[in-house]
Each structure stands twice: as C-alpha cells, then as structure tokens.
C-alpha cells in the first residue's frame, strides 16, 4: 500500500481533496459531518504529502505521468526539492486551519451552507497543491483558477460577518482574473516560442535559444506581472487587505499562509527553472524591478500597516511587507538569497497563519476587529494572547523564533552581494514590524478590559477560546519557536536543497 502512495502520492494529494470536495458539497446539513470529512481528507493529504516529500528526499526529483502519457505530450507532475516541501506546507496548514474551523465556521456560516463551504475550502486546498506539484505550465493555470474561484467564494462568505466582504471579494475577483489572464497570455507566448507546455521542456528549448526572441521576453513580462498580482507584489497588492480583513476567520488564516506562498513558488519556478537568470533580460529585471519593488513594498506596506485601525488589515499589510522580504531574496539571484527567501516563505506561512487564527479567536469570543478593542485581552483570553505574542515576536524577528532565522539568512545573502542598503531596509522594516505589532500588544496587555468584559462581581471574566481553536494556535506558536531554536537545522537543509535545484549554477 505504501508503495502505491510512493508511486501515486503526487497525484493522490491533488485528486483526493478534489473528489472529496465534490462529495462534501452533497453532504446533508448534519452538524460536524462536513467538517469531519474535510478534516479527515486534509489529514490524509498531509500524510501522503509527507510520504511524497520523503520519497523525493530518498530518490531525488521524479515525475508522475498523468494518464500514462510521457511528457511533453501528456501532463506530468514533477516533484523536486522545491515543491515537495511547499505541498506539505499547504497540506499541513489545511489541517491546522480545519481543526480550528469547527467552532469558527459554526459561528460564521449558517448550517445549510456548511457543506458547500467546506467543499469550497477543499477545492482551494486541492487547487493550491495542484498548481504547486504540476510540471506543466498550462496545468498551473488550470489549478490556479480552481483555487482562485473557490477562494473568491470563500472570501465573499465573510459577508455574514461584515458586508464589506462582498466588495472585497469582488475586487479580489477582478484583480485575480487580471492576474490569471496575464499569466495565461504569458504562457501563450511561451508556447508560441517553444511549442511545448512542459516546463522542463521549455527550459531546455529556451536555454538552446539563449533566452529566445521577443515573444519569450513578452511572455516573461506577462508571467511576472500576472504572478506578481497573485502573490501581492507591491504595488499590485490592493486586493489583499480587503480580502484578508473581511473573509471568514478560518479562510483568512488559510489564505494568508498558503495562497500567496503558492504563487511565490510559481515565481521561483518560472524565474529560475523555466527562464534562467543567465538570460540578460531576466537577470536585469529581477535585479532592478523586482528588488526595487520588494524594497519599496517592505517600507510602504509596513507604514500602511502602522496606520491601520483594524487589526486584520494591519496584519494583511504586514503580509505585503513580508512578501517583499521573499522577493528581495529572489532579486538577489544567489543561492543564499533563495535560501533566505524560501525559509522566510515557510516561516511566514506558519507565523501569519497562527496570527490570523488568534485574531479569529478574539472575534469569536468578543467580536474584536479593531486594535483599540483588544484592550485587556491578556486577562480575558490569556492563552490566545500568549500565542499571539509568541507569533508576533516571530513576525518581528526576535531571536529564538522562526522570523529571526530567515531574516538573518536574508541579510547575510544581501551582505554577500554587498547590498548594505538592503540590510538597512530589512532592519527598518523589522523595526516597523516591532512598532505595529507592539502597538497591538501594548493595548492587549496594558489597557484595562472594557466594563462589558467584567462579571457582576466586578472581576474580569476569563473567556478563553474553545479547545479546538486553541490547539492549532498554540501548535503554530510552538512550531515557530521550535523552528527558531532547533528546527532551523532541518529547514535550512530543505531550503538549501531547494535553492540548489533552482539555481544549480549558484547565481551571479
């Protein structure tokens, strides 16, 4: 049986959630049935994703031939050191958020819609994993659409909480469609240039053509901008704050930790595997345009985060800034830079997911959305606040947390290229992160709880989040600390393997 998973696991982790999503959509409105189904599916997917990762480590890169056709005629799934960890990351985050989902969805979605809601959630999971594991450029687009369309729906479901979710979802829909369109136009040009859709094949042909003609350049531009929109590269991030702020809590946490990450993975793939930094136009664009936008975005979005009154919008803008870190790692075009970028991708997924889960728990108990309402949370929800604090430290980059590891790696990479200004920007953005996260924690710890949180005897009533919510939150907080203390050894190896696959030549 396990040998079957070793040979078919790559397809299994996409197909299982897809088909189970379809079945889930038909489930009767029995309490917890749909949730339980989705959770079991997610756990299975995570387990198999782990087997796939293990297989990849054992045997190296391998492909799965869909329909039994050899690439480039058929579609193949290509697993290597870059995408296997990300597939596992997505699956694991799905498990975390789904554990949490039961109470959260119970309060935010009416009962008869829960089955389709979980179906859409599973579709999003399947779409994200599908676009990560595939080795075919057009197939990427297909699964990008699967995940996007289910995501638009999920975001709009936040209207039960706040009507602004509808316009946020619409905005996301329009911009996401522009991004997907740009991406598919780019694929079209690449197809016209190379005559194949298989990424490994494209790589070989483009390398033979030494970067190809203008068609390849235009394709490059469209792919870069399209993916840039999807991964919220500054200044194409305008869809993100609204989508993160108003969607259901569990959706926000899942999106924040996976959606932009999967798009970022595609950027790695296209910039380094399909195209190659040895082409002049790729190297120059990455060095000047992507790095420039990354750096401006880090500062600009951090400042925007600083002036928000809504806690989730603050974190959303912070996500844009963090994407800047990862793009900076790409713009460095060096193995070290990619290691830093990849590490930060994984760490940020863990941290941001956990932070949004904690904010969701605060809404669940007290309806908190604004920072000023977080007053006294240290007393009313001590465990949630503690998890939030640990994760916030990690976001800031305090030593012994996940964020520190990756930020140091990025800074070292920048130093290696002599980009001192980039180090300065990393530091400034970290200090800004300290300010906007510190602001929340100040309120949570030092402001007295409002009168309505007091019991009749005038004492603060403790209203901790339910156990199902606490488990994933605390789990992610502990994970971030573990990464910071010991886990970086293992993760660094994973990132280095990924960076070596992406940049076999070691960069510029």
């Amino acid at each position, binding site marked *: 049986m396990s040998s079957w998973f070793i040979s*078919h696991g790559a*397809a299994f982790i996409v*197909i299982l959630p*897809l*088909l189970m999503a*379809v*079945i889930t*959509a*038909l489930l009767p409105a029995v309490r917890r049935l749909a949730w339980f189904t989705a959770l079991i599916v997610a756990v299975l997917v995570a387990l198999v994703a782990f087997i796939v990762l293990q297989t990849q480590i054992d045997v190296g890169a391998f492909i*799965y*031939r*869909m*329909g*039994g056709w050899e690439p480039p005629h058929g579609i193949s799934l290509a697993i290597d050191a870059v995408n296997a960890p990300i597939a596992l990351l997505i699956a694991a985050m799905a498990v975390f958020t789904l554990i949490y989902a039961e109470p959260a969805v119970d309060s935010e979605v009416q009962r008869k819609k829960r089955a389709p809601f979980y179906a859409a959630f599973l579709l999003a999971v399947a779409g994200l994993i599908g676009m990560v594991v595939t080795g075919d450029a057009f197939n990427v687009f297909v699964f990008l659409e699967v995940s996007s369309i289910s995501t638009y729906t999920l975001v709009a479901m936040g209207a039960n909480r706040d009507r602004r979710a509808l316009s946020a979802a619409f905005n996301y829909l329009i911009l996401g469609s522009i991004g997907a369109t740009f991406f598919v136009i780019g694929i079209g040009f690449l197809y016209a240039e190379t005559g194949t859709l298989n990424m490994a094949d494209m790589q070989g042909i483009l390398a033979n053509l030494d970067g190809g003609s203008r068609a390849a350049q235009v394709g490059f531009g469209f792919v870069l901008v399209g993916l840039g929109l999807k991964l919220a590269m500054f200044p194409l991030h305008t869809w993100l704050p609204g989508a993160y702020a108003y969607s259901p809590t569990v959706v926000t946490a899942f999106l924040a930790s996976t959606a932009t990450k999967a798009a970022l993975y595609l950027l790695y793939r296209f910039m380094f595997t399909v195209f190659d930094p040895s082409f002049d136009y790729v190297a120059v664009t990455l060095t000047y345009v992507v790095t420039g936008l990354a750096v401006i975005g880090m500062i600009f979005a951090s400042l925007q985060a600083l002036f928000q009154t809504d806690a989730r919008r603050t974190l959303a803008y912070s996500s844009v800034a963090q994407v800047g870190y990862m793009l900076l790692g790409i713009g460095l075009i060096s193995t070290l830079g990619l290691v830093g970028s990849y590490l930060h991708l994984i760490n940020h997924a863990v941290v941001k997911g956990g932070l949004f889960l904690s904010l969701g728990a605060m809404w669940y108990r007290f309806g908190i959305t604004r920072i000023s309402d977080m007053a006294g949370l240290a007393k009313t929800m001590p465990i949630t606040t503690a998890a939030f604090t640990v994760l916030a430290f990690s976001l800031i980059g305090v030593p012994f947390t996940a964020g520190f590891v990756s930020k140091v790696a990025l800074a070292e990479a920048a130093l290696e290229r002599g980009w001192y200004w980039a180090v300065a920007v990393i530091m400034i953005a970290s200090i800004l992160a300290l300010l906007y996260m510190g602001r929340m924690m100040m309120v949570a710890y030092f402001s007295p709880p409002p009168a309505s949180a007091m019991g009749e005897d005038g004492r603060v009533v403790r209203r901790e989040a339910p156990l199902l919510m606490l488990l994933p939150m605390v789990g992610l907080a502990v994970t971030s600390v573990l990464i910071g203390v010991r886990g970086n050894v293992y993760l660094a190896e994973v990132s280095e393997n990924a960076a070596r696959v992406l940049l076999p030549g070691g960069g510029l």
Partner: protein
Amino acid sequence: MTIPVKKKPVKGPVVSPAGSDPHVLLRVISKFLIPLIALFAFYVQFHGEYGPGGGFQAGVILAVSVILYALIFGLNEAKRAFPPWLVRVGMTLGVLLYGGTGVVAWLMGGEFLNYSVLFPDPIDGQHYGIIAIEVGVLTTVTSVMIAFFYAFGSRQPQIEDGEW
C-alpha cells in the same frame, strides 16, 4: 438602438390571461425548437470524436435549451422540468464521473486518467474512457449553466412584456 426602459417592480409571476397571449407564435415555435436544440446537443456530444464538438459545447447547448424553455414558459415551469436538486446533483455527478474514471484507472493499476488500462485492449480503453469523461463534462457543464441561470433568474421578477 436604445429601447425605452422603465423601471417598474412587478409582484408575482406574470401569467397572461388565456386568449390574450402575445407570444403564441414564440411558444409554438420553441416547442418545436427546444427538442431539436437538445438533440443537436447530443449530436455535438457524441460526434465529438469525429468532428468538432465535445462535452463543453454540448453541455452549453443543452443548458441553452433549458434556459430557452425557462425564458418562454417561465422559471417555475423550467424548475418543474429540471428541479434545482437535480442541478446540484448533476454538478457533482459530472465531476465524480470524470474523476471516477480516473480513479477506476487507478484501481486497475494504471496512472490517474490512464484509460488504456480500463479494457484489455488499450484502444478500447481510450474510446470508452473518453466517452465516459465526455459525459461527465456534459453533466457538469449543463448543470452549472442552469444553476447560473436559476440563481440569477430566481432573484428577480419575470421581465415584463412591455420591456422587451
């Protein structure tokens, strides 16, 4: 070609009194036409292996026949003929049929969607596999198109005659 439009909210479905139906011609012709459209859809479906066509196109054409029915005879009539629960089930059934074909290929020891293993002769397997998945496509596309129409159409009183 601007058409004078007036906004007049209408309560309840409009049922023209017998004898004064201005759309008799429309109804009669469409009664002939709708079966033909459906038939054409199936032609497109099953001829897809030989000429242009396939599940997508056939599904849309089949959905158009239902939508046309709804436009002319009213949404409620259409919902009687093609009830919403069937739409919901059809949506999922199509995907399951498609994916199920792939899963069967899995169970028979091949890769996902490898139709060649379905039958002893790979060519037979390809033929039957393609037919199965095309039916799945047809089912889903038809159901979703109708679902779109139901969803939008149900939120709105019927279009008043004067507005056409």
